[in-house]
Structures are given as structure tokens and as C-alpha cells.
């Protein structure tokens, strides 16, 4: 008996919630970016599950684009983190609460 699509979407929802928890609860910039990546993956999984349900391959093309965007966002986010680290020698995002150094 094949696995119903709803199970895949439930998994995607739970992964999204875990990622969201990571973003909201962590102070290290790297952990926040990791949580964002997890959320993006959960969204991809949901997209493919729904694409399978409606028998449309366009969902896979969307996921392809989301992967490319995630890669670009990670590159820029990590570059920002490295630049910030050079300034304040820390990646704690709570210390970024002033408008100028």
C-alpha cells in the first residue's frame, strides 16, 4: 500500500517547524542560516509532494529554482557573516543592535 501524500506533507510541515524553531531560538548567525536552509528544504519537499499528487512536473522545476536561490542566499549570507565577524569578532546576532559601530 503506497504511502499517502499527506504523510509527506506532514513531514515537510514538521521539518519547517523545526527550522523555524531554530531560527527563532538561536543566537549564532550560522545556526540561523542552517534553520533557514531546513525551512527551504521542507518547502521543497511539500512542493514535490503536491506535484506528484497532481501529476505535474512543473513542481520539480520550481524546486530546482528554489535550490538555486537557496544557494545564492547562503553564499551572500555567509559572506555577510564573515564581514560582520571581521568587525566585531563574534557571530552573536544579539550584538548587532546598534546602527553604527
Amino acid at each position, binding site marked *: 500500500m*503506497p*504511502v*499517502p*501524500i499527506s*504523510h*509527506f*506533507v506532514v*513531514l515537510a*510541515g*514538521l*521539518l*519547517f*517547524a*523545526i*527550522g*523555524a*524553531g*531554530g531560527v*527563532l*531560538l*538561536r*543566537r*549564532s548567525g*550560522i*545556526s540561523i542560516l*542552517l534553520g533557514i536552509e*531546513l525551512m527551504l*528544504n521542507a518547502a*521543497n*519537499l511539500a512542493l*514535490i*509532494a503536491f*506535484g506528484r*499528487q497532481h*501529476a*505535474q*512536473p*512543473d513542481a*520539480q*522545476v520550481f*524546486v530546482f*529554482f528554489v535550490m*538555486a*536561490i537557496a*544557494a*545564492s542566499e*547562503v*553564499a*551572500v549570507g*555567509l*559572506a*555577510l*557573516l*564573515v*564581514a560582520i*565577524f*571581521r568587525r566585531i569578532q*563574534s*557571530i*552573536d546576532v544579539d550584538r548587532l543592535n546598534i546602527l553604527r559601530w
Partner: protein
Amino acid sequence: MASIVFYLAAAVALVSGAVAVSHRNPVVNVLSLVITFFCVAVNYALLGAEFLAAAQILIYAGAILVLFLFVVMLLNAPEVKAAGDARPFQRAAGLLVACVLAAGLVLLVLAPRFPVPGVGAAGDAKTIGRLLVGPHLFAFELITVVLLTAMVGALVLVKRKH
């Protein structure tokens, strides 16, 4: 057989996802995220999207997480203390939001509207390739511009001013 693989992959994905966002050592976080991405790739293969399963490992586990690992190792920042020591209200609010989100998504999805999947669409490279240069050509070209912008942006951000 497929359901055993799915439940195993789902369980491992959830556990390693939880480790990835909660462990204090950043290298362990990245490695458990690798395991999570592997399980998600297995799920893609179960749903018939085998090209994307291979692409997921190639792009996410093989490139993006290596980049994360590089930055973690080069920055070598001291481990940031857990969030609980100074901001209990924020921690409670964050946990509440995550739990509400999880519960809401699960309840929404378990409503009996999803039929059991039939054959589904093909997931091989030819289908995706035809779609990319056919109906979605404009988005494809735009994505290349986005990637170029990100590359240039990342290089500009880390350039040292002499």
C-alpha cells in the same frame, strides 16, 4: 517496502533536524543537516523525482554545506551560549511559535482531502530539461542573473579594503 523506507527516512530526518538546530557545536549542526538533506533526497526519490534527489545531494550536501563547514572552521567562533540564560521570554515565545506552527500544519494536512498518489509525472532529466527551456525559459534566464549577482555580491562583501 517503500513505506518502511519512508518512515525510516522521516524519523531520521526529524531527529537529525532537531539535532541540527539545537546542538551547541556548529560542526555537529552542519553534519546532522547533511543527514537531514540525505533523508529529504530519499523522500524525493520515493516521490519519483530522481533527478532532484541526485541534484539535492550534489547542490545542498555537496556544495552549500561544504561552504557552511568552511565558514564554521575559518571563523572558529567561540560557541555562543544557549539562549536560555538571558532571555527566558524570548525562548518561551519562540518555542510556542514553533509548536503552534507544527500543530497547525499537521492538523491542516491530515484533513481527508488527499487521494493516494497514482503514477505521477516523470522525474527524469529529460522532462525537467524540456520544461526549463520551454515554458519556464524566462525564469531560467533570470535565475542565472540571480546566481551571478550572488557571486559578485559575496565577493564584494568579503573584500578587504586596503
